[in-house]
């Protein structure tokens, strides 16, 4: 499939729509900017609003291959960039032993033999033995790619600093081979759940897009697109309920993907309306913490009889014993 570039944000928006991703003007415009300026795009927002999905849709829309680098604590260059395939190198030296001996046999002395061996060294440190990890793959790919660096906030700060070098000029130097430069500049999307502050240097190099929970209408459109079997009236009710849940102070607010799961559950259960019975059985699809569940049940007017009263606050000890000396501390 040929890759595409887009002439306007509207065109990009339409192409994303074809990938079943409903992008609002904001997303489309900033994504377009990122394509035009050749800058990585940093997307932030609550979990489950479709940040990763955006990168996938972008790959689909542009016809580029998606290369994904999932970040986690302890991720380092050998897992993200490249690694020498030691086992393979070792295997080759073993298998090629005879050939090596042949090469070295004619050498008059040790120094000459070492020279000859050095001349053949390149064989073992060539691209053949280089295990390409996502970053290097994105750089070396012959076809243009979309590089998704997922949940960058989970990686260590140290890795972030290393990523800076790669993202600014898309080249890496492998000491044994030399400098490898990108054939095509990949479109880079970084996502972050904002669990920690990213370094300013990284932010400076990126365009910034904050994706928040969608409005009722937008989310309804998503539900209609992905779960078309759900009756429209019920879909609206469901989405409105989810929005109400998001305004409550929950440990984990339901995400879009959970709304979709719930919509599918409603379809599977053949629900006709959101009655207490249906809610009771399906609410656990939306809420993943027991305390959240109880709280929502309580607020929806379904008080559980065995709801334990909260323990009383611990009294402050020795409240009346400090008459000896007082001061404004």
């Amino acid at each position, binding site marked *: 499939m040929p890759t595409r570039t887009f002439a306007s944000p509207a065109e990009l928006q339409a192409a994303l729509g074809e990938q079943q991703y409903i992008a609002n003007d904001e997303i489309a415009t900033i994504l377009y900017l990122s394509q035009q300026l050749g800058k990585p795009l940093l997307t932030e927002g609550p979990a489950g609003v479709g940040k990763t999905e955006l990168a996938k849709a972008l790959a689909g829309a542009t016809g580029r291959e998606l290369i994904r680098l999932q970040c986690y604590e302890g991720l380092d260059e050998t897992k993200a960039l490249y690694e020498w395939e030691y086992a393979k190198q070792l295997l080759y030296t073993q298998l090629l032993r005879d050939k090596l001996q042949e090469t070295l046999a004619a050498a008059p002395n040790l120094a000459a033999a070492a020279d000859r061996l050095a001349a053949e060294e390149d064989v073992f440190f060539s691209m053949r033995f280089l295990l390409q990890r996502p970053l290097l793959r994105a750089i070396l790919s012959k076809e243009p790619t979309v590089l998704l660096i997922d949940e960058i906030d989970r990686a260590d700060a*140290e890795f972030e*600093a290393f990523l800076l070098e790669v993202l600014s000029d898309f080249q890496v130097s492998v000491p044994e081979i030399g400098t490898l430069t990108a054939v095509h500049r990949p479109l880079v999307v970084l996502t972050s759940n904002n669990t920690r*502050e990213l370094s*300013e240097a990284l*932010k400076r190099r990126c365009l910034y897009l904050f994706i928040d929970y969608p409005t009722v209408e937008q989310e309804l459109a998503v539900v209609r697109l992905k779960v078309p079997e759900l009756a429209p009236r019920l879909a609206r009710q469901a989405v409105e309920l989810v929005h109400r849940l998001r305004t409550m102070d929950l440990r984990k607010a339901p995400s879009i993907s959970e709304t979709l799961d719930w919509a599918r559950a409603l379809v599977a259960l053949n629900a006709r309306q959101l009655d207490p019975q249906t809610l009771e059985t399906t609410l656990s699809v939306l809420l993943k913490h027991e305390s959240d569940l109880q709280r929502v049940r309580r607020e929806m007017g379904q008080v559980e009889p065995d709801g334990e009263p909260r323990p009383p606050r611990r009294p402050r*000890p*020795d409240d009346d014993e400090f008459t000896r*000396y007082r001061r404004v501390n």
Partner: protein
Amino acid sequence: MEERIIQFISALRGGGVRVSLAESADAFKAIEELGIQDRERFKLALRATLIKDASDLATFEELFPLFFDATEAPPLLNLAQDLTPEEAAMLAEALRQFSRRLREMLEKLIRGEMLSQQELDQLGQMVGLNRATDLRQREWMARRMAQALRFREVQEALRQLMELLAQMGINKQRLEQIRQLLQANQEALMEQLRQHAGQRIAQNMAQRRPDQEIDELFNRPFNALSDQDMDRLRKEVRRLAALLRSRIALRQKRARTGQLDAKATIRANLKHGNVPIEIVHRDRTLKPKLVVICDISTSMRYCSELMLGLIYALQDQISKTHAFAFIDHLEYISPDFVGQEPNAAIAGVLARMPSGYYNTDLGFSLEQFSRNFLDTVDSRTTLIVVGDGRNNYNNPRLDIFSMLARRSHRTIWLNPESPLLWATGDSDMLKYAPLCDIILQVSTLAELTAAIDKMLVQR
């Protein structure tokens, strides 16, 4: 237009948003791509390039309309034009009842005259608008300007005027029309004031040099900070934490090429028939375990608050933190930080344990600590006490403290007071001092940051 954008960027900086030169250059490139015709796109171009933190979005949204929206207040309607001569005469008659000042104001309203730039500037000077550099003051400033224009009296006068006109026998429907019109005019004037206040504040923000001021705040002693200063420092905590983190990360990277780990090397090379192809080095950077005991009495509040803020922003560099707060008794506050922003959690704790006339008692708090939480201190723990050691002549419980110091890996005391004061008054600092491994004087945020940097080096 370019100048306007540059002003806008300086205003953002004045509002505490950090915008680098590279980012403002990006903003111009982005605008070149998207043009300035479509307002929404123009806004997005600026936002995506200038704002890199969700918490700065609010400042952006507030400032943007002040710089780039058509700032004309809704036009006032001229009532005088469409009055019949008869009505005009009645109006003039009624107006004569008022004092000169009020009459002039009312006539202005009737003619639908806007305030001139000169008048606005004068009003601004009267209420001190030229010194305002915070958009939160906008409404208040507008209202003060309205007060200076005697809006309330004018409103009262308007009501009287309507009554007078009614007595003179003007058409009821017509009267209602006139009333609505004057009302609208007055609201429009208020809007004009609001606009002016906003623009003026934005201008002031653009002229302010933010960085010097914040640097100065970093070096200002805790006890000289105002609430406003604290607000700004709280915002800076996350950024400082990011700085600290990259410093720590770099140090760890350098430390990693340490000793050869023989066991791990053999294990890793089993697959190569024990030919040591992969060399494994000992990872010397154990993340520290912290137990933090913070004095949150009035004198120590800011220091402890910033300390907790920094520690919790750096959680990924620390393997475990147990935080405690005390005034007259001790509370375990780590649970407050679960699933909450550090700043919100700290605010919650401070609200739960309000400062006031308490008897600061570290001795009793230590006793509580050793009774209930002793298991949090082991030979890998760094024990940190944040306090001034002023114990209100209570028993300092040195026995417990020395036991804790022995149990822990290191004991660090952070004290905002200068050593010269340790022997004075109710300070027990000199008694605690020999038991600590390190005592750091932290009277400013800069010192606190340096202290934390030092603490996180594990040996």
